[in-house]
């Protein structure tokens, strides 16, 4: 898919009308993710019960790719176990690095459309932000912290 189509068909909708961009009441885990070079800045909130992500949401601001990617990610991980979510986050990072196999990419459902971003080095960090923050949130459990990616 060329970039304009990617925006038109997928990114714009998630960016302008995100389903999961709001505060989450009763969140059990909370993590901030920042791309200092772009000003992308999100706060991911998860409600985890018995090892399952019952609900998730994010707030923040940034470019369309970062916001849409986080929204699609939440579509995918709600209802999944934390292990499954971790595997999906790994798969997404591998896809963006151009290393994922077909099965890993397929498991990402709509977010698989972001595969073409792997060829745009300047935008890779935007696409990764939500997923990287998810990985950090799950790795640290309910602990608060920040996921930074330095640049320039």
């Amino acid at each position: 898919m060329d970039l304009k189509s990617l925006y038109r068909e997928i990114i714009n909708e998630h960016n302008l009308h995100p389903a999961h961009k709001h505060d989450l009441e009763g969140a059990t885990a909370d993590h901030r993710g920042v791309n200092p070079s772009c000003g992308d800045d999100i706060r991911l909130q998860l409600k985890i019960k018995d090892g399952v992500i019952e609900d998730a949401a994010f707030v923040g601001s940034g470019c369309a790719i970062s916001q849409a990617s986080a929204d699609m990610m939440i579509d995918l991980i709600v209802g999944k176990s934390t292990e499954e979510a971790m595997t999906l986050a790994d798969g997404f990072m591998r896809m963006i690095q151009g290393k994922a196999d077909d099965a890993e990419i397929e498991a990402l459902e709509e977010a698989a459309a972001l595969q073409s971003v792997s060829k745009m080095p300047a935008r890779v960090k935007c696409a990764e932000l939500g997923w990287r923050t998810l990985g950090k949130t799950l790795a640290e459990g309910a602990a608060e912290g920040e996921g930074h990616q330095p640049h320039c």
Partner: protein
Amino acid sequence: MNQALQDIRGDFPILAGSDLIYFDNAATTQKPRQVLDAVVNYYNTQNANPLRGLYGLSVAATEAYEGARETVRAFIGAQSASEIIFTRNATEALNLVAYSYGRTRVKAGDNIVIAVSEHHSNILPWQMVARETGAELRYLECGPEGQYPEEQIDSLIDERTAIVAVAQVSNVLGVSLPVESIIAKAHSAGAVVVIDGAQSTPHAPVDVTALDADFFAFSGHKLLAPMGIGVLYGKETLLEAMPPFLSGGEMIEYVTREDATYAELPHKFEAGTVNAGGAVGLAAAIDYLTDIGLEAVAAHETALTARMMTALKAIPHVSILGSDDPADHHGIVSFNIEGCHPHDVASILDTDGICVRAGHHCAQPLLAHLGIGAACRASVYLYNTEDEVDRFAAALENVRKELGYGS
């Protein structure tokens, strides 16, 4: 269009026969054949390690290298070629001053004055000096259009000011800083002045002697020269008294096991094998620009900038940063589109074959001061055309729609 600029596009192999609209000239410029040929010719016919030569070829290399230094001297109006030090780029030139002059001369209780609109390359070295010496780092604060009030210059620079370091032209707003009054005030307070000429030198004639700058830095790659060659000008009396920045080969007079005496200026500050090919390329770039005339270059840029600003102002949701006067932009037009992140704007423009910069432009304190997170920047140079500006404006008009807005 000026006669001298009519047919120059063919001189630039990367642009010739290409539809690409290259509007990222403030980041780096394209290179004309004349510059590339000069570099190739140096390596084909003159290459040896300069300054070491006991044989003819090395003498030829030395002559090419020192000839380039003389071209730079004349270009910026320095008194003596020994005041011209070749560096890798403006960043290295600024660091040279910070390390060799700043760290040794600035004392606790002194202050260093810089401007909030500086490029990170003219901020971080001074943060380092302030931290290490216990000096205070002071910022001149600009208004929304990048203007610096005289009263502030008068009040901020005082008898404890050791160094004032400012750009001649901002890389985000394109606006000129009032360097003449800054230099006058600094000198009356006994401070030395470091001018970052990275964005001014490519666009307007520079005369460091008339300006009375103590140090002046610029990069070759922003004025048609290859990457990896830059210049530090420094007043001879200041450079003489400074310790070397880097040490090693080519910068010594005599070395014993314990000690060394340093070479004369400028070689004291050029440790190791030099970038002779780059210096030759820089000289060729200067010759190319002076043949056309920097006044003609500036007039062309201002005309393109005026056209661009008029077109952008007519597009709803687009706002231009900085002055309303195109002549005060030095070819730089930074802008934002309401509701659209600059990185998304740049990505969409890229699909239309248009290269613009987006982000913080290595000037985060300025963007924070202006209350914006990031911006897009289109910057033109002598080879850009009115047609490119029109195509750019037409593409920009569609960006909001491409990003999902109704209009």
